């Protein structure tokens, strides 16, 4: 084909302009949310004492950490959806959830506790946590990967990993309302392991599906 002929067809297609990637991503998350929420409600559901738990700052901190993770990963992935995006000065965003968790751990040691630190770390729900977070993250991961295809990244694997982190943050937000372990030590161990698993899946999938 002559390049001029191709240009003619591109020009004819110019009116079909695409919406910005953030809008797609938002739409994808909104579409996946009811699916994940239903999965959550039929499998676990919120903990019975949730009405009193919300007055426990360590319970609330879990949501702060998971939502900080999801939003910083979302901001980073939107940034990386431009082909010539540079990573300098952006990766620090991921320090936000880590920092929050760090503050939580310090506070966890500072206040008197009924259970020793090993007990708080091991908790009582680690297996449920490790299996549920990936499960509730799956609809988000599929949706965010599909929507990020609308962008044009030069780092498909990294962007896939970020989609994984974002999805893990969202899935963990749901799970956190069920989980009876509120210690930041538990969160730092088991939530992190589950998120790492989802991130790995995201990176492997991203490598294939996020090329443009």
């Amino acid at each position, binding site marked *: 084909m002559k*390049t001029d002929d191709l*240009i003619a067809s591109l*020009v004819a297609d110019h*009116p079909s302009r695409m919406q910005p990637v953030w809008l797609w991503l938002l739409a994808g998350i909104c579409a996946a949310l009811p699916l994940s929420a239903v999965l959550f409600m039929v499998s676990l559901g919120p903990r019975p004492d949730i009405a009193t738990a919300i007055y426990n700052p360590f319970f609330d901190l879990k949501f702060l950490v998971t939502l900080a993770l999801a939003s910083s990963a979302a901001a980073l992935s939107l940034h990386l959806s431009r*082909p010539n995006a540079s990573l300098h000065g952006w990766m620090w965003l991921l320090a936000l959830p880590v920092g929050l968790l760090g503050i939580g751990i310090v506070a966890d040691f500072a206040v008197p506790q009924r259970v020793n630190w090993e007990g708080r770390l091991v908790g009582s729900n680690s297996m449920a946590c490790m299996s549920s977070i990936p499960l509730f993250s799956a609809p988000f991961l599929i949706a965010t990967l599909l929507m990020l295809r609308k962008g044009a990244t030069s780092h498909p694997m990294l962007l896939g990993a970020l989609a994984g982190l974002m999805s893990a943050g969202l899935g963990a937000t749901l799970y956190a309302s069920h989980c009876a372990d509120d210690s930041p030590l538990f969160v730092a161990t088991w939530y992190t392991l589950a998120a790492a698993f989802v991130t790995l899946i995201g990176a492997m999938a991203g490598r294939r599906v996020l090329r443009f």
Partner: protein
Amino acid sequence: MRGQEHEWTDLMRSANAGDVTAYHRLLSAITPVLRASARRGLLRAGQSPDQSEDIVQETLLAVHLKRHTWDANAPFAPWLFTIARNKLIDALRRRGRRVFVDIDDFTDVLPGEEAPEVTNGVDIEAHLKTLPQRQRDVLQSISVDGLSITETAKKFEMKEGAVRVALHRGLSTLAARARKDLI
């Protein structure tokens, strides 16, 4: 050269505002620069430059389908050259080579460089044959036969909206086929 890049940015801004003529001028203006950098990149990797037109066409297709990822407050050229560089790397990878491409290949055209003879691309032509009938008909009518959307709609007794959809799907499928070659 810098003046030319400013001009591209202005043209792309006008194009984003709906100016089709500006869009046509922009694509025509970047094509020779893309061609020169593709040839240079292929030669540097020790490859024959006869594949350069395929790289040019794939780059143009990606520029078109991904133009919403250009930040209108930033200059156009760095965005363009990143896509061009990615497409060159893809093309070299397709030949099973590990490659390192110097970004400087894309940032300027050497003065006095001889304009190469323009060849036809073969990859997109080949992928075109594998498109669904409707998409192929519409794309061929608009590109090769040079008909307008309206004329194409009349020719195939389609609604103009359906022609637009088939055209856009066809172009997206072409890009997807080119990507598939990679894996």
